[in-house]
């Protein structure tokens, strides 16, 4: 869809656990940085072992071992509560790396994504970094992660419109219902694109009709698409009829936003 857009487009791949958009766009990165979060480090000389830090931590990320605090990294949410509450200033917040941000800028296109470090569990800080690039742009497309939990919400938050891509199977319908519930909760207008149309059954269409959800377009099930996708080729560049499909979905979205 990004490549079918008429104007300058920004594409942000926010699926930082399994980013894939770069495999299709093959960007030459012009920018790269390590993304960090703050985590507490305890100064054993200053620490009196009072346990205030453990008390204030709602994530149970701090334990006292032989009278001194110890951090369970993976439970820490970097809220800063422990450092602010330490009565003797024994806690310093130090930057820890969680992933890599990469961006590629050319005259007509801007692409950015994040790569979460292996073993790192919280993706939100990296998603927030990638989304910073959305400021002061005309049209921003965000590739959101699957699911309906925090990484998806962080990616979809504060957007003007959500395009829910589904497929006409019981799995597709089941997950679509969850996604619909989530974007409704977020108060974001949305529409549905049915991928691999023609496979499976009609229940997704029936659901959309019943819920008055606009179906923005359908992408037919086509083995040629599966083969192009498997190679990392952009379908609309090889099969011109698909260019029309994607352009019309984008036009439809822009119309819906105007409403």
């Amino acid at each position, binding site marked *: 869809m990004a490549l079918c857009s008429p104007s300058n487009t920004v594409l942000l791949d926010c699926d930082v656990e399994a980013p894939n958009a770069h495999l299709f766009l093959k960007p030459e990165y012009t920018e790269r940085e390590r993304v960090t979060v703050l985590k507490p480090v305890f100064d054993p000389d200053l620490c009196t072992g009072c346990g205030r830090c453990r008390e204030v931590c709602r994530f149970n990320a701090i334990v006292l071992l032989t009278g001194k605090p110890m951090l369970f990294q993976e439970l820490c949410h970097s809220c800063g509560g422990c450092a602010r509450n330490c009565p003797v200033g024994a806690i310093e917040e130090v930057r820890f790396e969680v992933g890599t941000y990469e961006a590629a800028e050319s005259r007509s296109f801007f692409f950015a994504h994040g790569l979460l470090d292996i073993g790192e569990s919280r993706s939100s800080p990296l998603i927030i970094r990638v989304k910073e690039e959305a400021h002061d742009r005309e049209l921003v497309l965000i590739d959101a992660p699957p699911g309906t939990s925090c990484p998806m919400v962080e990616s979809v938050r504060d957007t003007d419109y959500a395009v829910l891509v589904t497929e006409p199977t019981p799995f597709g319908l089941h997950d679509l219902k969850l996604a619909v519930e989530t974007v409704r909760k977020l108060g974001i207008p949305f529409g549905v694109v049915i991928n691999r149309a023609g496979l499976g059954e009609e229940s997704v269409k029936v659901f959309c009709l019943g819920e008055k959800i606009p179906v923005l377009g359908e992408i037919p099930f086509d083995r040629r698409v599966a083969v192009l996708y*498997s190679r990392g080729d952009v379908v609309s560049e090889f099969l011109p009829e698909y260019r029309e499909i994607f352009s019309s979905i984008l036009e439809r979205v822009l119309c819906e936003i105007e409403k």
Partner: protein
Amino acid sequence: MRDRKIEQISVISGKGGTGKTSYVAAFACIQPDVVLADCDVDAANLHLLVASGQKNDETIPFTSGYKAMVDPDVCTGCGKCVEVCRFHAVRFEGGAGADSRAKAQIEDLACEGCGCCADECPAAAISLRENTAGELFVSPTRFGTLIHARLTPGQGTSGKLVARVREKAVDIAGEKGAELILIDGSPGIGCPVIASLSGADGALIVTEPTVAGLHDLIRVADLCDHFKIPTYAVINKCDINLELADRIQEQCRDRRVEVLGSVPFDPVFVNALTAGVTVMEYDDSEVARNIKGIWSALLSSMRKNNHAFTKAAAR
């Protein structure tokens, strides 16, 4: 009875949509006395294949963490909460400040429940309430008991819910004398996947020969290696791109991930899914025979690799 070791196999994929759940359902159909744990709590699907139309035996509420709540009658609008919140979860309509009449508002989906705002509020206008984050279900299936869950959309504690699903599965396996727990993991490499993998005896990656499948396979295989879990792979839809299927074989060899089989693209997967059954039940297809072979290869490979475990189990 509890000291008998229960084996746990986690099926994961990295990339979504590779066919993971269809394989888990097929294995459940082959293997007797299995307990199923659907750990894709964001979008649990396994019940659609193995328990369609069945009622849940048990529903257990899942609470996790806290959410902040503002008492607008007490809030002075000073804005201290905005200052301390690292999650951009506090908003003021029209801007904060001592002379402003605006009141703090908590955006529930952004609030991580750290309580910093409540601790720092000079007017004590903010309190914390327990957060209901989802539900766990215990369901009978055609093959064995299934534990699954539903995360309330927008919740951030999916790793914790995965851990609860697995605990419950271990309890049920103990009660029923089952020896194997089959875990349907979630896509990605983040917190729910880590929770689906930790402590598992083996991981099976269901991948596909696409650039995205290969890219994510490498990341999730490295994650398994990070946790020192014996890892195996199946290449689904292997004929979509034979060259990439070869590259997946190479990458697996380099990482000592044993490829147990390759299954060509076949509409039987979608047909079975639409009928609400596993591919094993749908018809006597080439795919069904292939999957049966993969399952027995997985079990025998795991037995070989976990020699110490087998000896302990025999005792």
